[in-house]
């Protein structure tokens, strides 16, 4: 109550978005520490710019869009990437290819690995649509890309995800007990 009095009604609303932001950030970068940093940065930027938010109903989308900028800034800051726009469609993380999936933990690890291997642009669209159920138009606004691009990226993302997971399942079926040892 005191914090509401001191910081206004926005504060609890923003704080409530933290888990959502963290989930998205983690799905984007698959690094807990980095995800945490991104969320923190996005939260503080959102707080600093709270006057710019006109409609409180779109708080979540607005904060995700701020976090997207933080994420892109972070990628630009890494010296091994020059042009983020160009990399949007080609960037793949160095994650291992999805391995054997059978129980729940393995499925989770498997899907995460597959998502991590998706190009950045596709990964972002996929996670926003599937995890947070944003509409295509909202995603387009958050990532600042046309709706058509959202749809094509989503389509490609799901297709390659399906291929990767199918392959993993096949591998599992072919070699139920043996693992390749290099």
């Amino acid at each position, binding site marked *: 109550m*005191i*914090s509401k009095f001191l910081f206004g009604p926005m504060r609890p609303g923003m704080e409530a978005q933290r888990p959502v932001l*963290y*989930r998205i950030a*983690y*799905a984007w970068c698959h690094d*807990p*520490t980095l*995800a*945490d940093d991104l969320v*923190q940065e996005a*939260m*503080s930027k959102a707080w600093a710019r709270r006057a710019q938010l006109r409609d409180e109903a779109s708080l979540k989308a607005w904060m995700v869009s701020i976090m997207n900028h933080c994420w892109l800034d972070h990628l630009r800051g890494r010296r091994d990437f020059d042009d983020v726009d160009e990399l949007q469609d080609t960037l793949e993380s160095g994650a291992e290819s999805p391995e054997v999936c059978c129980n*729940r933990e393995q*499925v*989770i690890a498997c*899907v*995460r690995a597959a*998502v991590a291997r998706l190009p950045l642009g596709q990964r972002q669209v*996929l*996670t926003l*649509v*599937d*995890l947070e*159920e944003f*509409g*295509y138009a909202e995603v387009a606004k958050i990532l600042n890309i046309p709706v058509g691009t959202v*749809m*094509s990226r*989503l*389509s490609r993302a*799901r*297709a390659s*995800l*399906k291929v990767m*997971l199918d392959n993993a399942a096949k591998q599992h079926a072919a070699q139920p007990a043996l693992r390749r040892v290099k």
Partner: protein
Amino acid sequence: MNAVISNETLHAFVDGELDVTESEALTARLSGDQTLAQRVCALRSLQSMVRLAYAEPPVAPKARPRATQRRQLMQRCTYGCLVLLVGLSGGWALRGLEFQTASVLPTRASGGYQTVSLAREADPNRVMLHLDSASPERMEAALDRAEQLLDEAEEQGRRMQLEIVANSYGINLMRAGVSPHEARIVRMTRRHANLQWVACNQTIARYTREGQIVELLPVARSAPTAIGEIVTRLQQGWTYVRV
């Protein structure tokens, strides 16, 4: 209307992005088209797998102090300071109140003098004034104070007992021939029946040893020691005021 439905359309359908008519048409086709139903099913299961995968993202290690924690710490400090400030100012304000209510007497009786009472509330009807100095101001102050208290009590119809205890050089107030206020003392005693003058016997004995003959005014009596008198009176519930 058997055209192959594009993946984009199907995704839009799964995500609820199609408008109502398109969506209904597709739903109608689903019941008859086995492959289409399988595609939708595969999409939905993919979606749920992704959701499952990120339902519980791993928690970041919290080894280093984060900005939030620092900010929270700052907030807590601020609250703490606020509470402290409120407490202090409240205490300060109440202190004034307490002072006014608990000791109605001392503000009138002592007017800046030190007041002591063993009772919880200073008794305004039994007061002793202690004088231990021969300075004219102090003597006059003691008499003024005594008169003021007695007059007030008279106005309010209270029966007041007042004792003026003198020791050390203060005893000069009660010495016959020495006291500068002899007439006033006699007048006051005549006017107020409950006014008593008490001199310390030890002081008289000391003066005597030094070769001075101490003769008290007829209205004054002597007590063995001033301190003893004061302590006894305090135990009886009197209020002590040092002039």
